[in-house]
């Protein structure tokens, strides 16, 4: 068996089944703290949903034929999926890579960096899915969900988790310390949340801002999630999926290249 390994830092990722034990490692840690973890992931979106939903809901009777809180529910599912995946690949992955040196230990075993970074990405999406499901259950209990297409939200949440996990891993790959991640949230995540139709329809924003939003992944997640939660079929499904997948694949490729440069130089 003769295999050749291209030496370029940004060569194609080589993923094998060996990413599974790395994913299981993260899952085992999560399982030990599952309840506080899920409650923690749930608290923030629920406070926004019910706080803003009832508060602003009293001023804004309806948006597009539904109550404000029903409108907001889809936005909260998407933004909390984004936050959950982002936090995992930024703070937790950085801790495993740089502080605890867990990745170094794994690379001494027969597991390559490509599999480790891929496991981190899939784990972040898995964790986003776990917290996304928790939120879906709560909003279903409050009658904010039309059950017709709601199960389609599960693969969508996973995909959104992959997209933002991949983008976050790019930041992690170049981060000198935890403080660095604050820039990512204040300069990227928060502004994007405000222009992507999470809290209010994007159509009322200036055209230039709408264009910017359409280039970012969160608006595409919202465009898919909102109709699905309201029992409708979304439009431009392929476009939205392609954008989300492109951010996932592109982000992962870049993140892996930068991480190789950082750790295997």
């Amino acid at each position, binding site marked *: 068996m003769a295999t050749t390994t291209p030496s370029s830092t940004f060569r194609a990722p080589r993923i094998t089944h060996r990413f599974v034990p790395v994913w*299981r490692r993260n899952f*085992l*840690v999560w399982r030990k703290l599952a309840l506080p973890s899920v409650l923690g992931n749930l608290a923030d979106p629920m406070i926004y949903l019910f706080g803003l939903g009832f508060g602003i809901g009293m001023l804004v009777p309806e948006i597009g034929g539904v109550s404000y809180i029903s409108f907001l529910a889809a936005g909260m599912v998407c933004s909390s999926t984004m936050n959950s995946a982002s936090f995992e690949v930024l703070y937790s992955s950085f801790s495993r890579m740089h502080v*605890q040196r*867990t990745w170094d230990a794994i*690379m001494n075993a*027969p597991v390559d960096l490509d599999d480790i970074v891929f496991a981190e990405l899939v784990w972040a999406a898995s964790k986003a899915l776990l917290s996304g499901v928790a939120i879906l259950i709560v909003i279903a209990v409050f009658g904010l969900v039309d059950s017709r297409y709601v199960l389609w939200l599960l693969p969508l949440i996973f995909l959104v988790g992959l997209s933002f996990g991949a983008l976050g891993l790019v930041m992690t790959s170049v981060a000198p310390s935890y403080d660095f991640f604050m820039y990512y949230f204040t300069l990227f995540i928060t502004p994007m949340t405000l222009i992507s139709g999470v809290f209010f329809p994007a159509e009322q924003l200036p055209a230039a801002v709408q264009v910017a939003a359409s280039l970012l992944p969160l608006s595409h997640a919202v465009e898919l999630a909102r109709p699905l939660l309201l029992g409708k079929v979304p439009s431009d499904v392929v476009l939205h999926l392609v954008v989300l997948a492109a951010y996932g694949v592109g982000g992962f490729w870049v993140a892996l290249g930068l991480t190789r440069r950082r750790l295997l130089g």
Partner: protein
Amino acid sequence: MHAVPRGLALASPLEIRGLRKRYGDNEVVAGIDLRLNAGECFTLLGPNGAGKTTTLRCALGLTRPSGGEIFLAGLPVPERAREARMRVGVVPQQDNLDPDFTCAENLLVYGRYFGLDDATITARIPELLAFAGLESKRDARIQSLSGGMKRRLTLARALVNRPDLLILDEPTTGLDPQARHLIWERLKQLIRNGTTVLLTTHFMDEAERLADRLAILDAGRILTEGSPREVIAAQIEAQVVEVYGDWNGAARNGTSGAQAWAEAHACAFARRYEVSGETAFCYLDDAAPLMAHLAQQSGLRYLRRPANLEDVFLKLTGRDLRD
């Protein structure tokens, strides 16, 4: 604990030819050749920054060499490094046990990285914990372990796949004497049972105790290689006399008594001498005439001892600090 019959391991566990590694203009490894024999303990000895850790990283396929050839467990590295690491255990310089897990969970999770199933690993855990002297710590969190216990658990973790070759990067740095001795005992036990051991250290006593063969490394090159006795015999005189203190109460301005004495008399007795700070080191094959002379001097203090690896090391790599 587990024996690999020596005759069976035909290929060298690790063979390195002409290894070079450059970072920009800085050549950290500048042409290293070494070949481990199955079942031996080989020690890489060198000051900080000599290239020891970089050599190990190249050998494991964790960084790409700028030149040279590496065969680990008979397989070319880095091309088939992942496969080769199936047969290797690694104890890294920096502890990287999983702080979220207990001792037993650390071993379980690590075994999975080798593709071992849970039943196989679970069956090995009691024997690994016993080897590390941690039977009572099975369900203890990593934070509750002492530095020595963490090292031992790291050693046990490196054995989870029953490796043919064990690589240890400064395994006893930062440990107290009791903990160091326990690690050495365990390594001797492994070597006796046929595991090949490659270790780096800057402790001479560690190298002298454990190594069948050693290489002294500095500035990315191997300066000398052989068994500890061979290296000492080839590189240095048999005896060392260290002279220090005041000489006849007449230390000159800005010069120590030892230096003044050495300049006046050392040449007459020693083949080679060296003054470092307050001490003159005299290297000689027969120390008796010098000892008789020193007994006549007033104020000088002196110490006679056989030459050791540290003398060779300092002769070859110099006395300058490496930070």
